[in-house]
């Protein structure tokens, strides 16, 4: 996904004079050819993430469309107040693109994890959040975001599904179960392990790569009454529970929210290991869904 991001952004820089990129060393080498052609619109501030977001806010105030990029923990966790004040409070837009989501950087340990990024952005105002599930989804989401003026977060991952799915912001029906089937919603790269978890279970599966704004109307249209809903999110468990609860405020329902746990495991290993430890591998998902039913 990072490669698609660099390719698409480089093309946008070549063709859209409003586009600018702000980096804090991460991925700077891949942007070197673009920086050579557009030295005024590819800015690498060095290892200075507070400045990275401040510069983006300033660029936006002059009318440019900044694309800001770093590791998720440095692009969200570390610079929370810059996102709040240098973008939100100034009414300035930006496209924030992260890599290393959740435990993608498993071998680097907790200092490089960011399972809480989407939860943090949820405390801010009107962020669009895209979580592509496949490299082919990245380009369309990025071009759409750059064409707007809002604040968008594009969460790139090394985990991905076997196949891309179209993303128009709405929940997309992937598999239709029976009339009384459980509704399971997979966000981004969680679709693949989910589809490997549900063999023989009566579930309806829906997919989204745009959890913010959450497709609440689509959710209401997909549930039966009473409703049983399972969320499978690649970031902090429960991040979207509030929205599902609001959408179903007048519908009797049960909700199971699966995602990354809150505990600091103090472990390295592979992303697959962490998925298993957080119950997000097919066996863990199947166990949780079966228990819920």
């Amino acid at each position, binding site marked *: 996904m990072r490669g698609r991001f660099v390719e698409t952004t480089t093309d946008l820089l070549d063709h859209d004079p409003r586009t600018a990129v702000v980096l804090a060393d991460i991925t700077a080498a891949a942007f070197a050819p673009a920086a050579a052609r557009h030295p005024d619109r590819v800015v690498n501030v060095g290892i200075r993430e507070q*400045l990275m977001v401040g510069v983006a*806010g*300033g660029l936006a*105030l*002059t009318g*440019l469309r900044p694309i800001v990029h770093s590791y998720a923990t440095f692009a969200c966790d570390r610079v929370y107040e810059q996102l709040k004040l*240098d973008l939100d*409070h100034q009414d300035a837009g930006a496209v924030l693109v992260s890599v290393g989501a959740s435990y993608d950087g498993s071998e680097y340990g907790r200092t490089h994890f960011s399972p809480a990024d989407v939860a943090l952005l949820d405390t801010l105002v009107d962020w669009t959040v895209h979580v592509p599930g496949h490299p082919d989804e990245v380009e369309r989401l990025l071009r759409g975001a750059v064409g707007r003026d809002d604040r968008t977060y594009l969460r790139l991952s090394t985990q991905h599904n076997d196949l891309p799915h179209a993303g128009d912001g709405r929940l997309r029906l992937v598999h239709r179960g029976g009339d009384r089937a459980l509704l399971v919603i997979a966000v981004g790269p969680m679709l693949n392990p989910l589809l490997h978890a549900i063999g023989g279970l009566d579930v309806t599966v829906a997919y989204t790569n745009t959890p913010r704004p959450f497709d609440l109307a689509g959710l209401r249209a997909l549930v039966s009454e009473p409703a049983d809903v399972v969320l499978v999110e690649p970031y902090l468990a429960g991040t979207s529970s509030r929205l599902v609860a609001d959408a179903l405020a007048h519908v009797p329902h049960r909700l199971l929210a699966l995602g990354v746990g809150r505990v600091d495991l103090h472990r390295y290993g592979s992303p697959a290991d962490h998925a298993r430890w957080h119950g997000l591998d097919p066996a863990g998902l199947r166990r949780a869904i079966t228990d819920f039913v």
Partner: protein
Amino acid sequence: MTASIQQSGVDQLAPLLRRLTGDEKHELSAESTIDVIWVLYDRVLRVDPARPEADGRDRFLVSKGHGPHAYFAVLAAKGFFPLSWLDDLAGRASPLGHHPDRTLVPGVEIGSGSLGHGLGLGVGVALGLRAQGLLDPRVYVLLGDGELDEGANHEAIAYAGAAGIDSLTAIVIDNRSATHRQDLAGVFTVHDWSASSVASHDHDELERALRGHTAGRPHVVVADVGGDR
């Protein structure tokens, strides 16, 4: 009370400050930023209250957003908004509060208050103008000596110096408010900025310092306002 804005000089701001503060005895000398902001708007900045969002304007970013009385008094005196706004500071429907909000006040470039945000924004504004071929406007950022304790400033100072952003001028109001005093000009010059240090009550000297930038380097003006305001 109707303020006269026909007078020349900073004294005309006194009645406006009294309207803002509701304090009949409020003295100009209580406002640490008043000389700098007055000289900027009266002599230096190329801004037009009739076109506060003109592309080619100079940008003045108040990073030290605390205590914006002098800023609001000068903007009102120069016609950016009606003098009547001064009578309801921080009221329920007032555009003016104890920290400025760019979405509410014509001529205000950034919302500020939490210290250490303005210089990074200013670097971005300077880069954004240059990227669009707007090479004439200057970007001025007003900071306080206490505000320079915030680490975010030092990211901006180091980068602006290394990148040679020469359309940028930082102004540090030195009212001795930092708990641990540092060499204020030195913080910048070590990163290859040019620096002028002035006493803020001398408006001619202040104007020279505010115009003291040279090609290839950002510029800082350290304005000593004394330790009692």
